[in-house]
């Protein structure tokens, strides 16, 4: 989907920064600043960075739950000033209302979106998405009766049931065990393949990012975190967890990301200080295998590992 370069920009982040005012002895703390990037319609973007670089804060600002200190987020041509039904959020802890059943939680969202619908219509919509996340049979159960994975599925179903334009996910699978994580990732992938949903997801998990995303945004460490780099996923769109590692671009991509997370973190300050770095246009890279490194790549410099990046 992202091969079509004429796609419209759905989310534009311009010069976003977040700072907390001075409190007591501590001076003012800038979490991040000069964040510029964009998300195309139907794109699946992942944000990766170390803890403390303000990923969740950034997501909250995108969702409209938090206010930026300066800069703007423009969605669909309009500036974001508050939360909206068109930007659905899946929270890190499922945030289900424990006194409502599965059906009740999803219905709460559906009723908020379409308050004039009849009971039957609401029920039908809820059922559709319960089936989508493969939770048939759990409609009448309260969250305390569901496992972690099931609860997160309800969260996803709730977010999708309002048919939002944008889906924002804040490390949705980090609290789950590896096996559940895997199966939920597969489900999310297949849902997004079908619905062509615009998704912005925060994650720690490199493999998850490689599996799901079209584009990975790498952030430096906080305070004063910035976008270090935008990495394009060089794997083909049709990929599965089971076979993607066989693709020749897998390891370049993966190595690049590990390199970023593990080794390059000490040198972020130098990188950002480099006169070639412009926060408005952070470098875009597309790690590919040696044999593909030629001018056919539409982005400058397919680079692997540490070559020429000092």
């Amino acid at each position: 989907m992202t091969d079509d370069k004429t796609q419209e920009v759905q989310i534009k982040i311009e010069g976003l920064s977040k700072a907390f005012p001075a409190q007591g002895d501590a001076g003012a703390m800038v979490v991040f600043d000069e964040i510029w990037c964009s998300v195309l319609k139907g794109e699946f973007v992942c944000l990766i960075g170390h803890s403390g670089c303000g990923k969740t804060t950034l997501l909250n600002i995108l969702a409209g739950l938090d206010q930026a200190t300066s800069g703007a987020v423009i969605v669909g041509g309009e500036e974001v000033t508050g939360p909206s039904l068109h930007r659905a959020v899946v929270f890190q802890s499922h945030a289900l209302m424990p006194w409502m059943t599965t059906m009740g939680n999803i219905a709460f969202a559906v009723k908020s979106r379409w308050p004039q619908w009849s009971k039957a219509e609401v029920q039908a919509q809820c059922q559709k998405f319960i089936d989508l996340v493969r939770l048939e049979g759990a409609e009448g159960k309260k969250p305390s009766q569901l496992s972690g994975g099931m609860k997160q599925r309800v969260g996803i179903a709730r977010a999708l049931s309002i048919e939002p334009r944008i889906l924002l996910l804040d490390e949705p699978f980090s609290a789950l065990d590896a096996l559940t994580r895997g199966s939920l990732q597969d489900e999310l992938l297949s849902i997004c393949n079908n619905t062509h949903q615009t998704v912005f997801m925060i994650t720690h998990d490199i493999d998850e990012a490689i599996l799901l995303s079209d584009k990975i945004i790498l952030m430096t460490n906080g305070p004063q975190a910035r976008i270090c780099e935008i990495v394009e996923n060089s794997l083909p769109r049709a990929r599965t967890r089971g076979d993607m590692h066989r693709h020749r671009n897998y390891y370049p991509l993966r190595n690049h990301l590990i390199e970023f997370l593990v080794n390059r973190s000490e040198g972020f300050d130098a990188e950002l200080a480099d006169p070639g770095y412009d926060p408005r246009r952070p470098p875009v890279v597309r790690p590919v295998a040696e044999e593909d490194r030629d001018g056919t790549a539409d982005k400058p410099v397919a680079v692997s590992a540490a070559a020429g990046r000092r």
Partner: protein
Amino acid sequence: MRASIRLRALVVSVLLFGLFAGAWHLSTLSGADTSANMDPEYAALIGATAKGASAMPGPLTVAAEIWKHVSNPFYDKGPNDKGVGIQLGYSILRVLSGFLLAMIVAVPLGFLIGMSEIMSKALDPFIQIMKPISPLAWMPLALYTLKDSTVSSVFVIFICSIWPMLVNTTFGVASVRREWIDVARTLEVGRLRTALAVILPAAAPTILTGMRISIGIAWLVIVAAEMLVGGTGIGYFVWNEWNNLSITNVIAAIFFIGLIGMVLDLVLAYLGKLVTYAE
């Protein structure tokens, strides 16, 4: 197995009660009867306790008295003598009136304070000053201004049982999980619907705990208030029997008071269970 644990607990309870009753009985056995050395007419004019009987009645006497009350609970012999059922009924009615009034005021006010920091800080000093005032101190003021004794008792119950509900509602509302509110925000839910559909059910267990505490206090207060003011009611019943220095009846009354207090608490505990959710 649960049944076995409950059965064993019951047995222990019964044993404890038996021990207590036995000790009570032994301690109230009569001493030597001194009436033999008295002038017979004199002996006829004084009561049993002056002749050596224990001033404190034994458990059997009390049990008999309780049975007497229970077997004819609704008799009415005029404004100063009514059956224990009627007296309890009046008291319960007053308690419920004061309690309901307190609830109508406490819950919305608690919401307001819980959701608004300004209101919270502004009202806090008043709440802190009025909270610890004893009902017995309010009573004379109420009688003086409101004049009518029933209205005064209901007012005193109101002013004493409002605080636990208010504090608990405030706390419950203020500590609703941030993320549930965020969910409501992302779904563009209006303030009122958020308050009713999210905050209220979320805070309900805390609010009901407050109510449970409040009804206990209200029941305590009504007995004290009625002792001060008289009329019809279990507090008045206690005072009337106290006037007659009939300790037996006073103990019987204590038993009834405890019984009804327990019932009220059970009712609210049940209601509390209905709104509890597991997280």
